[in-house]
């Protein structure tokens, strides 16, 4: 199977590099971004299967980036990362159309489980028949509309 590409967006170098370390050890191709601007540029330049987005970035709120990413990279699965104290933000991000969220400090097993689960969902969607794809897009659009 083709290697899956993941984008990690967080302003903290320790978070970026620890997540990269774990994901690369499982064979994923990983790129990182420190700001929302860098994340958008990288997402325009290539397709990522999944993006891990910190909810608090120096140049933009993570939920705002999430909305922009929906239009730049609609196929990319988006997982929000947030601290325990901001659980409400995590719930809000689901309302904004995130596919999942993870709480810091991130549990390694939970990270891998979430990534694998979301990539499996994406793979299943890609393997669908035309009718199924139409239905899937309809559902996805409804979800995105609700989030706007």
């Amino acid at each position, binding site marked *: 199977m083709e290697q899956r590409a993941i984008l990690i967006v967080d302003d903290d*170098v*320790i978070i970026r*590099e620890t997540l990269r370390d*774990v994901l690369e050890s499982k064979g994923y191709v990983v790129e990182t971004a420190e700001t929302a601007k860098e994340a958008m540029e990288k997402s325009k330049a290539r397709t990522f299967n999944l993006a891990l987005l910190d909810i608090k970035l120096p140049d933009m709120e993570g939920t705002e980036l999430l909305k922009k990413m929906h239009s730049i990279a609609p196929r990319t699965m988006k997982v929000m990362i947030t601290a325990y104290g901001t659980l409400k933000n995590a719930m809000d991000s689901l309302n904004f159309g995130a596919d999942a969220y993870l709480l810091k*400090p*991130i549990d390694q097993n939970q990270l891998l489980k979430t990534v694998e689960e979301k990539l499996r969902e994406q793979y299943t969607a890609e393997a669908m028949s035309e009718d199924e794809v139409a239905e899937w897009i309809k559902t996805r659009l409804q979800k995105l509309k609700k989030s706007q």
Partner: protein
Amino acid sequence: MESSTPSKGRECELTQRILKLWERYKPLCLERLSVIEEARTAASSTALDDELRGKAESAAHKLAGVLGSIGLPEGSKIASEIEALLQPGDTIAPGQLLRLSELVTNLRSQLTRGPTAHDDSSEML
């Protein structure tokens, strides 16, 4: 037992990875702790201004988010409590100041000790 070998191997690999990450990021964590210690000292002499308080709160927030990632889950909890005490707004009460001081000392001990191989929360990232 044979069945425990892959699990032990995985655990060992994980421990090695965490220790490597800790060595790499220990200086940055200590730098963040220094900002918090500076704020504690300033608060003790009622000289804690909003700027330093904000920097220390941000440092505590970052430590809370990462220490569990590098084998120090207890450090994450302590940093999270420090962050709550440094929230902008009210003056830090004497009782809170005492607690802040205690927490900062505990955090320093955690960072000096570093992660251990037997830390049962070492799968926190």
